[in-house]
């Protein structure tokens, strides 16, 4: 039971990274515009995020400190303040986009303007966090998230050209629209390097009271959990490549993205897409809202846990209670969740090095990791990820201007 629960943490974390409102749209766009050419980007990003997630979990298992905790403690408040400001901005935008994503999903099945659903979704989100426990959030999201396997079923039903797909795993130069190609590639990796994802995973490991004996399980969870998300994301790319690309459909809205499900599922396609989008976005919004509370509580040393009653960790509860309506307000004011996501992905890319770089230090700190520090190979790999994160940060904004 505990093993299943552990893997559930991996699955729910991967939903925030691979299957949130931005990732689904980007994957659909990538498949429609470039066929299977971008699969290598997903593969590379998945490897990186598996490793980062494993390290975040290992840090939590050994030190019982989350990533944000450790960054504040080891790098000092000045460094943490950059992370705090940046992550609050990004998380609020992502939260707005995710709430909007759920509202858009409801719009797809009802035809009612998505903005009417925003307050209802926000209230449901807040209520679940207010009265629920971490297990309910984690396991509920994981179970509901299994509906996204519909993308895998749809992809399989279409009979994908596996040879073409395998070729897509090798990095290639774009055949057309280079700026948009690289912007999409940066968007995919940027969406995976989301700071909230790593800290949510580490915080979840502490909520679940992982310890040294859970280190092997942490590795399995990181691989299986991120693997689950990657399989779904790859399926979206492939399905979009097979259904939208040949018809020249550019994915500029979720209505267009939903059309990828029409061929495999007929009239069930759009409701199924809406169900997948809605549950994935709801799961991601739970993650982001909780992560905002974790960020403040861990950074400032407050009492925190989703398993405590609100009166036992009042400041923790107040943060998400304020953040959720603010996110809802943002999506109503700013409009299209897809546009909010595009902007937040660029900010995400800028912020990624700020959280990935300290990992290189922390995972070698004997006070935190004791005998479970990184070996040389691990350090080389993390260093490569840090370099990738910095490169993405440098090119993200110019590419957004040129190709977004």
């Amino acid at each position, binding site marked *: 039971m505990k093993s299943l629960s552990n893997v559930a943490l991996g699955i729910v974390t991967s939903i925030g990274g691979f299957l949130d409102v931005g990732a689904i749209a980007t994957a659909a766009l990538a498949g429609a515009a470039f066929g299977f050419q971008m699969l290598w980007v997903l593969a590379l990003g998945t490897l990186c995020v598996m490793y980062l997630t494993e390290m975040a979990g290992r840090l939590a298992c050994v030190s019982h400190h989350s990533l944000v905790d450790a960054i504040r403690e*080891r790098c*000092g*408040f*000045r460094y943490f303040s950059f992370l705090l400001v940046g992550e609050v901005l990004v998380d609020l935008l992502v939260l707005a986009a995710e709430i909007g994503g759920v509202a858009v999903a409801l719009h797809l099945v009802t035809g009612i303007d998505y903005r009417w659903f925003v307050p209802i979704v926000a209230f449901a989100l807040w209520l679940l966090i207010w009265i629920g426990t971490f297990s309910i959030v984690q396991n509920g999201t994981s179970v509901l998230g299994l509906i996204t396997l519909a993308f895998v079923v749809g992809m399989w039903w279409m009979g994908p050209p596996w040879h073409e797909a395998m070729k897509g795993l090798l990095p290639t130069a774009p055949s057309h629209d280079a700026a948009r190609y690289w912007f999409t590639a940066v968007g995919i990796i940027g969406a995976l390097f989301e700071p909230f994802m790593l800290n949510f995973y580490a915080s979840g490991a502490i909520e679940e009271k992982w310890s040294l004996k859970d280190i092997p399980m942490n590795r399995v969870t990181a691989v299986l959990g991120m693997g689950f998300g990657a399989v779904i994301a790859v399926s979206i790319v492939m399905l979009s490549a097979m259904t939208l690309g040949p018809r020249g459909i550019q994915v500029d809205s979720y209505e267009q993205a939903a059309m990828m499900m029409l061929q495999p599922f007929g009239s069930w396609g759009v409701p199924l897409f809406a169900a997948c989008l809605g549950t994935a976005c709801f799961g991601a919004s739970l993650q982001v809202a909780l992560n905002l509370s974790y960020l403040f509580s861990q950074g400032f040393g407050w009492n925190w846990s989703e398993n405590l009653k609100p009166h036992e960790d009042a400041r923790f509860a107040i943060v998400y209670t304020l953040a959720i309506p603010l996110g809802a307000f943002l999506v109503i004011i700013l409009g299209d969740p897809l546009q909010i996501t595009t902007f937040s992905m660029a900010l995400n890319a800028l912020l990624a090095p700020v959280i990935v770089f300290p990992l290189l*230090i922390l995972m*070698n*700190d*004997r*006070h935190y990791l004791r005998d479970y520090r990184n070996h040389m190979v691990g*350090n080389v790999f993390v260093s490569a990820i840090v370099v990738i994160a910095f490169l993405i940060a440098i090119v993200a904004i110019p590419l957004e201007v040129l190709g977004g």
Partner: protein
Amino acid sequence: MAEKNEIRAELLLGRKVRSIHGHAVGRIEEMRAEREHDYWVVTEFHVGPIALVERLAVRHFGITLPGRVHGYRVRWDQLDLSNPYHPRLTCHLDELEPLGAPRRKHRRAA
């Protein structure tokens, strides 16, 4: 607000230490305290990039250059903190112990 004879240690962190002649020696990256009867007293300040490297426990990354002095161990009596924003040495640079060298035995001022 701090009282007049109080110093905020967190504001000393990262401050540039200057020599008697006004040259930059390095930044304060660590402060070490020792037990003296019922109190902890700050006995030394670690200055320079190697002090930061040691604080972050990344010395094994090999990012220091062999043959170069990357930091100093500055005793409490070798540092003038009358202006905490501009700490200055009270001795010559060659009287400072390089970080990484074995500690010299010293007599503390009465």
